[in-house]
């Protein structure tokens, strides 16, 4: 775990800038396909991944860039993957919903809601068999918690005490459908008890709170005590995808959540409580912004994979 709150701030900024600049690229018609923005949820990924090492693995969902960056994926090849370019981490064939790097424990994203949960359990089984204290993390939305794969995963993980850390980012909407229309019980974390594991609700916009709760879950998994479900209450600032007119919610609600900005919150703490100069933070912000801008230029300038490459690697040697 990093002790340096400035480093935490840098990671939050990296995701913030990545999402903001991608949204901008999308608005200018420079981004291919869907873009599922992670803007507003930065503290979830950073808080969870801070307690992980390269030997720990994460399985992500369709809204994955925050997870990838927080886990330490190299920015340029990740960005190129988002644009479907040959220089991407997966040669551009994964695209916006799929990026992986096993060397740092990123086992990929998913285009299937709930699809990653059983896979994370399988990775946790491997970790358990290895006996080296590694942990598997599954990131998923509250929408995914209504999929059968969630219940199946929770049950077997608890029954087998798998070193699994289930991270539900509850951003209140599954596509256009508000959470309260599909579930009667507002706290998903409560479901943990029914499966025999601890569940906890945490403010997903408070990176330090997330980090503490995650540290408990990770320690529990590492010591062989089994899985934990963490529910992070948060909000996606944008629509389900960029271009979504967001008719299903009010601008007032959006503004309320933006006032709880996870990035600005840390900035304020750094200045007020740690006495860090605003100028130092501004310098960091400029530096991160240009790192992302360069990555986007790299991605846009990179060539597309040749169409014939679609025929390769259907099977492994």
């Amino acid at each position: 775990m990093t002790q340096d709150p400035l480093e935490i701030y840098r990671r939050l900024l990296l995701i913030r800038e990545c999402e903001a600049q991608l949204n901008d690229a999308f608005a200018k018609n420079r981004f291919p396909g869907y873009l599922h923005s992670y803007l507003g949820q930065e503290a979830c990924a950073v808080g969870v991944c801070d307690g992980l090492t390269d030997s720990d693995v994460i399985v992500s969902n369709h809204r994955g860039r925050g997870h990838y960056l927080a886990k330490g994926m190299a920015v340029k090849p990740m960005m190129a993957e988002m644009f479907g370019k040959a220089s991407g981490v997966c040669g551009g064939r994964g695209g916006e919903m799929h990026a992986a790097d096993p060397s740092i424990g990123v086992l990929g994203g998913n285009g299937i809601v709930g699809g990653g949960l059983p896979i994370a359990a399988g990775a946790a089984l491997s970790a358990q068999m290895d006996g080296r204290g590694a942990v598997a993390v599954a990131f998923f939305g509250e929408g995914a918690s209504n999929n059968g794969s969630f219940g199946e995963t929770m049950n077997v993980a608890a029954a087998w005490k798998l070193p699994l850390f289930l991270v539900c980012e509850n951003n209140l909407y599954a596509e256009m459908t508000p959470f309260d229309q599909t579930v009667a019980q507002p706290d998903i974390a409560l479901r943990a008890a029914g499966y025999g594991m601890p569940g906890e609700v945490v403010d997903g916009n408070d990176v330090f709170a997330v980090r503490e709760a995650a540290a408990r879950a990770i320690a529990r998994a590492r010591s062989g005590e089994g899985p934990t479900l963490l529910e992070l209450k948060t909000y996606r600032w944008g629509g389900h995808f960029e271009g979504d007119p967001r008719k299903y919610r009010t601008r007032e609600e959006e503004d309320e959540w933006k006032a709880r900005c996870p990035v600005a919150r840390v900035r304020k703490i750094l200045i007020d409580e740690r006495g860090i100069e605003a100028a130092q933070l501004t310098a960091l912000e400029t530096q991160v912004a240009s790192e992302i801008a360069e990555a986007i230029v790299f991605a846009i300038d990179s060539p597309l994979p040749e169409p014939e490459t679609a025929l390769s690697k259907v099977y492994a040697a």
Partner: protein
Amino acid sequence: MANKTFCWAIIDAMREEMERDDSVILIGEDVAAAGGSFGATRGLFDKFGPARVRDTPISEEIIVGLGVGAAMTGRRPIVEIMFIDFLGLCLDQIANQAAKTHYIYDGLFKMPLVIRTSTAVEMGIGPHHSQSWEAIVSHIPGLKVVMPSTPRDAKGLLKAAIRDNNPVVFIEHIALHRVKEEIEDDEFLIPLGKADVKREGRDVTVVATGLMVARALAAAEVLSKEGVEIEVIDPRTISPLDIDTIVESVRKTNRALVVTSSLKQFGLGSEVSAEITERAFFDLDQPVKRLSPPFTPVPFGRQFDEYLNPNADSIVSAVRELMA
């Protein structure tokens, strides 16, 4: 040489591979102390212990998903889905996850996963336990689909499947489980993707899969007495299909019949027939014929299974028509 049942051949294959390679693990419903719903995992729990042989909850999606995640992180899992009819419950993990992971991530992960499942054709156990879904899984790129017809093939193919770096759906006909065959004691593998000529002949190529192979061979005996020699080809691996061996045979015989327990419409027989037509149309003296169950679910009761599936008599009649 030892006389082995198909079922024990399967067990031997898993035991040998688990002895050879610590990363091979077995996961499924009742596979551990119980020894498998069909007895096809007997002794493995005692030998390899609870870490490597695990009973799961009745959660088909997680069973395959555990295999996928474990395969991505260094294991070679064998997972058991009791009946092929249950694949619908875990099709996401099979089709979207296992089959595509190597492809999506540009080769960053291998997927050495074997999904052992059974097909209960001719057992008469009703509409949720009698289906032939080999065509459904064969339609998914990235998966390999294997369907052995003899104990020796079952052993050699399963060992090869366990060593393969791709997800393999391995389909066992439960009706074949008790069939016996002499199997050599020395280790052997049967390569995936290679068809086997089960009987040579000059007049008609009969492509038969799974349970239908023995029936085709029985038909061959009858036809031989009439002076008609059929060549019986068992693809053994349904996907990728060894169409070269099939076409080569058709070039010699100039007639082809495909016999499957896979449904006629959009089925395996349709695929084999279409491939033959595309590649060897001008070698054919007759249109390719298919013998497959008609397009209906399967009711409870053996008599229905018998009525719906091809048998030696219907194969003989179909061959006679082709020779007419």
